């Protein structure tokens, strides 16, 4: 079990995360926040790359900072920008990672073959990685993170560069893996975690906004999501979520505190909730785009 007790992090004097308390048990946790909310900082704190300014992080009751190599031995980590040695093959690279994880040589070889099969790279396992596509590199990254059969798997934006088919395959894989381990998956793509996450963690204004199931988060915007015709003029308190084409014509999906006159209430999804919760940030991004 991983516990974060009142964790805060400051860079120089500016706070990035404040008073974060979380408990993780086996299952997938989706860390879902807009860019710049502090997701990567939180993951770096959990991977011991950063130390909390205050608070503590415990693995099975022991401070991870004190556990050192023992903690790193149960950790699998895929960083946001996964680095690799282009002149080496995936097999050779994974053998190197296995050696640094102090894995038994025979077990490592078996595990490498299994993982390369799992991430559909068996055909190119002895080819140099510099010729690989972004998606293939990302799959090597996923394989290296799972190499030591980690009890705690941390994936920072893991679906970057994956095509839709690979994305689905990856989601299923993570769901399966999470049966007997903690998987923390950071993303700003809602569909990555909507169906597989046991809980969704959201950070807003440096604080923990929520850690709830996707359905609980969706419930929070129940009765606030509507579809209106394209010509509808939005009031300041209403938020445009998305647009779609239907047999009734062009429709706007909006969040509104009260039912609009021409609006039809629709069932909210996690993306609606995400956009509604981060409406200030979404508004700021939209404003920047319109400039």
């Amino acid at each position, binding site marked *: 079990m991983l516990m974060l007790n009142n964790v805060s992090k400051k860079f120089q004097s500016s706070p990035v995360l404040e008073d974060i308390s979380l408990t993780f048990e086996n299952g997938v946790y989706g860390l879902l926040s807009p860019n710049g909310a*502090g997701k990567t900082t939180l993951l*770096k704190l959990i991977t011991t*790359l*950063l130390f909390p300014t205050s608070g503590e992080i415990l693995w099975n009751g022991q401070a991870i900072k004190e556990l050192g*190599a023992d903690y790193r031995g149960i950790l699998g980590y895929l960083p946001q920008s*996964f680095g*690799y040695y282009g002149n080496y093959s995936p097999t050779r690279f994974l053998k*190197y*990672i296995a*050696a640094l994880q102090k894995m038994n040589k025979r077990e490592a070889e078996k595990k490498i073959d299994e993982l390369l099969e799992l991430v559909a790279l068996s055909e190119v396992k002895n080819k140099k990685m510099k010729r690989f596509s972004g998606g293939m590199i990302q799959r090597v990254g996923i394989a290296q993170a799972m190499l030591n059969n980690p009890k705690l798997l941390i994936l920072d934006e893991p679906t970057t560069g994956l095509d839709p088919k690979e994305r689905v395959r990856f989601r299923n894989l993570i769901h399966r893996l999470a049966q007997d381990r903690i998987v923390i998956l950071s993303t700003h793509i809602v569909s990555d975690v909507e169906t597989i996450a046991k809980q969704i963690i959201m950070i807003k204004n440096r604080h923990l906004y929520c850690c709830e199931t996707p359905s609980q988060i969706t419930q929070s915007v129940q009765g606030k999501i509507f579809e209106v015709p394209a010509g509808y003029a939005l009031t300041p308190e209403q938020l445009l979520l998305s647009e779609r084409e239907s047999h009734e014509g062009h429709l706007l999906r909006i969040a509104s505190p009260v039912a609009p006159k021409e609006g039809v209430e629709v069932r909210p999804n996690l993306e609606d909730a995400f956009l509604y919760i981060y409406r200030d940030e979404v508004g700021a991004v939209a404003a920047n785009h319109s400039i």
Partner: protein
Amino acid sequence: MNRVRKNSPLTQNEKENSITFILKEVDLQPATFRSFLRSYFQEVGFRYLFWGMGDILFIIGLLLIGTGIMYFSDFHYSLENDYSNKVYFTVFMASPLCYALLYFIGIWKEKLLGTFELKMTLRVSLKELLILRMLAFSGISLLVSVGTNIFIWQLLGQELSLMRLFSLSFTSLFLFANIQLLLEYKIPIHYSYWVTPMIWGVVGVLLIWQQEKIAQLLFYLPLSVVSGIVLGLLFLFMYLLRHNYFMQKEGTITYANA
């Protein structure tokens, strides 16, 4: 129903019994620097220490040969004009070059490839690898120094003191390595890989600026004193490496864009 739990503190005897029981059950083995070195070489092996550094070793080899060729004519000129203190000064300045290049280019490559942070989270972390590499680089640099010094000594007609060449070489090598380790303590990793080479650049310029005085000092310093300094610096190097191993330091090279 009374849900309040009665909190009865343990007696001193019970506490001691508990501690004795825990100590008996748990196989407590203190982590030592020696056990770290032993376990690395037993469980991981020497071959992975320089993994991915083949190109770096090749480039540094070429650089060192190039530097040697460049300075050779200068050496001859110095000796013919009885400027042997200049030769000692050059040897003193150039001796940490191999170590410095291996260390900085190694870190720079990890940063360039983006493998730095990933390797910091492995059981044998990059921080530990760097400590082992520093140890190995010092050994390699010593061998390179010995070879180069014998080569210079032979080429210049065995007129210089070989012992002085060795001791000055080793002094500057371990002086550099120790100050580098001290800088590592003080400067956060996320900018140490470019700040420390700059500091060394400034130090190099200052030393060249005061070249005459330093060359005189290196020439007249008694050999026994220099040898003593070498030994002292060698022990300090081992101590600082050990200290670096136990020191906890943030391992990120990039801060989040927060």
